[in-house]
């Protein structure tokens, strides 16, 4: 197989693109390209990452305008082909608005922007972005968002659980998804979900900000597990 090529999409207002680039290209040595959304061609890449930020100023709703970018047709095609697609924070919001992922991300229940380190528990290892984790493993990764309250109705929540589409949950120091560990009022403490096939994943925490021990108060680099999983998934498929 040839060199793995990963695209990091840039929309107007994206601001975590260089952090993702740094984690992939400099920390992991992966061929990574920053691509302006109107120039994006999915067939040139093995995976695509939609990074965080405030695309289109979060006008209307976070991610709602970017979801209509022509780039999203390319992302949709990649998703259909089984290629890994990751949405981080605003990227997660874009993927839900584009209906590539279930649910919706509403303003935090306390109505404040929140920026802090949290613990998330890996609920399934079947996805393109969690296969190098252990089920039940707790990762230290920071969040930074205003609209992170994951919402689905009760029926959809039941389906997500049954279909193993809940990938990450916010948990406390004992690894339990308690109300106190829920930073934004998300339904069932959900921090990340995947599509039915498991190749499209979105999460509110920022793995790129937890990719080097120097960045972490826990001296950890748990975020790399998410990127290692992507690389492993691509290698197994090709």
């Amino acid at each position, binding site marked *: 197989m040839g060199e793995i090529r990963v695209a990091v999409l840039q929309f107007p207002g994206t601001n975590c693109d260089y952090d993702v680039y740094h984690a992939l290209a400099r920390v992991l040595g992966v061929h990574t390209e920053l691509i302006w959304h109107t120039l994006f061609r999915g067939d040139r890449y093995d995976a695509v990452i939609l990074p965080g930020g405030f695309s289109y100023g979060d006008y209307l709703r976070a991610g709602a305008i970017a979801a209509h970018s022509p780039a999203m047709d390319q992302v949709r095609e990649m998703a259909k082909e089984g290629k890994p697609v990751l949405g981080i924070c605003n990227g997660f919001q874009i993927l839900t*608005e584009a209906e590539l992922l279930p649910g*919706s991300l509403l303003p935090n229940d306390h*109505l404040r922007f929140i920026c802090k380190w949290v613990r998330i528990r890996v609920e399934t290892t079947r996805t393109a972005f969690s296969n190098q984790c252990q089920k039940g493993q707790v990762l230290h990764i920071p969040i930074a968002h205003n609209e992170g309250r994951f919402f689905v109705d009760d029926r959809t929540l039941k389906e997500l659980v049954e279909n193993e589409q809940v990938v990450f949950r916010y948990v406390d120091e004992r690894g339990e998804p308690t109300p106190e560990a829920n930073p934004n009022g998300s339904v069932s403490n959900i921090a990340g979900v995947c599509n039915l096939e498991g190749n499209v994943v979105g999460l509110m925490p920022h793995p790129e900000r937890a990719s080097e021990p120097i960045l972490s108060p826990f001296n950890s680099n748990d975020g790399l597990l998410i990127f290692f999983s992507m690389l492993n998934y691509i290698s197994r498929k090709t």
Partner: protein
Amino acid sequence: MEAVIRYKPAARDPEAEVIRRDLLLKGGYGMIKDVRSGKSLRMIVEASSPEEAKQIVERACNELRIFNPVAHTLEVRVWEKSA
């Protein structure tokens, strides 16, 4: 026309909860039992009738996901310009 977008009843509406708890209840308006916040979009539409204008706005809101059907309800009504 006016398109009003609100949270579905199943979704918590923290802004409305604060308005009720910290303004209405404290200000003696306990008789106001429920509040829901929302977003109102006013649109001027070229159409042959109010019904047609309503259909156009509803179609646009659905096609372009002006509201998010996962979390929101949409109400489209004729906006009466008051004096």
